[in-house]
């Protein structure tokens, strides 16, 4: 079910529209002069190409929550990076109507030598916000992340849970139109997971479009309207979240949903 004609025919154009997207990584060993020369003289290939996405198509409607599931290496993070514009499609088309706030697995650790505070500002500016816009939300971000004093220490001193919380707090407070969340919920403790899923529901009520990658299928079932299942760079299924999650669990042979849910 690569293209959902039912939703595409609605009058409002979809917020995210991906058409026949291919993404190829050039997976070389470090491209040094020596290896390059050796490769040339011995006519041996030093580069390998990895097709991380092979003809992916789907749409996400405004204000909806779309879960993305699949094994490790399925191409989920690659898909998100392409939607944010970090990666350029090798082939195909990505149309995004609105401003994307990306959020990646280990939070906003842009520069681990900088303090949490400096990272928040740097990240905000890199996302194209004005310094005042970041400043305005700064207190709320720190409060939500529950970091207290740690905010003025270098991020290399943070636990992965702490940087994930900060990353999540930044993404949801910078007044996003579209948020992409890549396994960010995985690192928080149980209480923070609850708090962040509440926050996501709140964003959805505000007309915000959310895409979320997680191994926690229970989160998908409770939060997402629709779900996209990727495997080896292809779309296996796209549709109402419970159906896709079901198909995924059956395919993986993890029928016991509780086992899979613990992974989250």
């Amino acid at each position, binding site marked *: 079910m690569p293209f959902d004609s039912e939703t595409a025919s609605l009058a409002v154009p979809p917020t995210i529209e991906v058409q026949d997207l291919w993404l190829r990584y*050039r997976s070389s060993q470090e491209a040094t002069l020596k290896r390059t020369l050796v490769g040339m003289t011995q006519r041996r290939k030093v580069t390998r190409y990895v097709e991380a996405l092979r003809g992916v198509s789907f749409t996400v409607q405004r204000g909806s929550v779309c879960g993305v599931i699949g094994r490790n290496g399925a191409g989920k993070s690659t898909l998100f990076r392409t939607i944010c514009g*970090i990666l*350029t499609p090798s082939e195909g088309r990505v149309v995004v109507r609105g401003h994307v706030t990306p959020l*990646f697995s280990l939070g906003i650790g842009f520069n681990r030598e900088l303090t949490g505070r400096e990272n928040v500002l740097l990240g905000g500016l890199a996302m194209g916000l004005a310094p005042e816009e970041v400043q305005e939300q700064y207190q709320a971000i720190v409060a939500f992340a529950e970091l207290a004093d740690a905010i003025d220490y270098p991020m290399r001193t943070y636990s992965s849970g702490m940087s994930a919380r900060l990353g999540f707090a930044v993404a949801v407070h910078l007044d996003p139109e579209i948020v992409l969340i890549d396994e960010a919920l995985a690192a928080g403790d149980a209480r923070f997971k609850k708090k962040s899923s509440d926050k996501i529901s709140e964003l959805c009520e505000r007309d915000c479009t959310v895409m979320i990658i997680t191994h926690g299928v229970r989160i998908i079932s409770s939060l997402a309207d629709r779900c996209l299942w990727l495997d080896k760079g292809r779309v296996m299924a796209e549709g109402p979240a419970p159906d896709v999650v079901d198909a995924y669990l059956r395919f993986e042979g993890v029928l016991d949903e509780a086992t899979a849910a613990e992974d989250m």
Partner: protein
Amino acid sequence: MYERGSSALRELAGARELLRNLTSRELKVRYKRSTLGFLWTLLNPLLMMAVFTLVFSTAFKTTIEWFPVYFLSGYLPFAFFQASVMIATGSIVGNAGLITKVYFPRAVLPLSVVASQLVHLLLGIGVLLGALVVLDLASDSADFDFVPYLPVLVLAIVLLAAFAMGMALLFSAGNTFLRDIGEFLPVGFLLWFYATPVIYQVDFLPEDWRWVLLLNPLTYYVQLFRDALYDPHWPAPATVAAATVCAAVSLVVGWTLFVRLSERFAKEV
């Protein structure tokens, strides 16, 4: 947020705040752990000057008048260029954390390095100007009447900064795909230093070797700084023309290649 598909230059203009933030961070981080901190910006060229003056007045018996002034008016622009390019070269690879997580105009990374080095250059020149005023007053034989020629100084700084930006863009993009560039640079710049008339005068070189200086763009920029500071007079039109052409070519080539290659940075870092 940067609209994709809008022109790369317009995107860059929209990232002014990010550029400013990165520049001030660059300035702060550099001296964070040293006791003398920012003073090193001024101490470094002065110490270099002391060393070269000592060597050249004892071992080599230089005939260049006011050698310390001659040296600094060439060394400050050279050091600015060298530091800009060398630090910028690692700026894409060194910011992998940012590049793989957010989309923003990548050019702000090398350009913020050049901007922060420009601050160091301006401080150094400020000190040199102060020293020239003192020398002019204290010594009868000294004649450093640079004030009427300040436009030459401004022109020299603008053209050199443009040349350095182009080279910083070129080297930072190139180094992302061929890391050997960063390794080669220390030796490369040592050669470049001796191929630039910083510690000698052009006519010290045998005729057979002058072509090296003519092919080296830095010769023209150093000459412009000397025209403004060491021996204040209006520069030869040929020097201005050569410096302008080199700056324009460097900017156009550096920017074009950078924009073309930057699409692939996130896959390579």
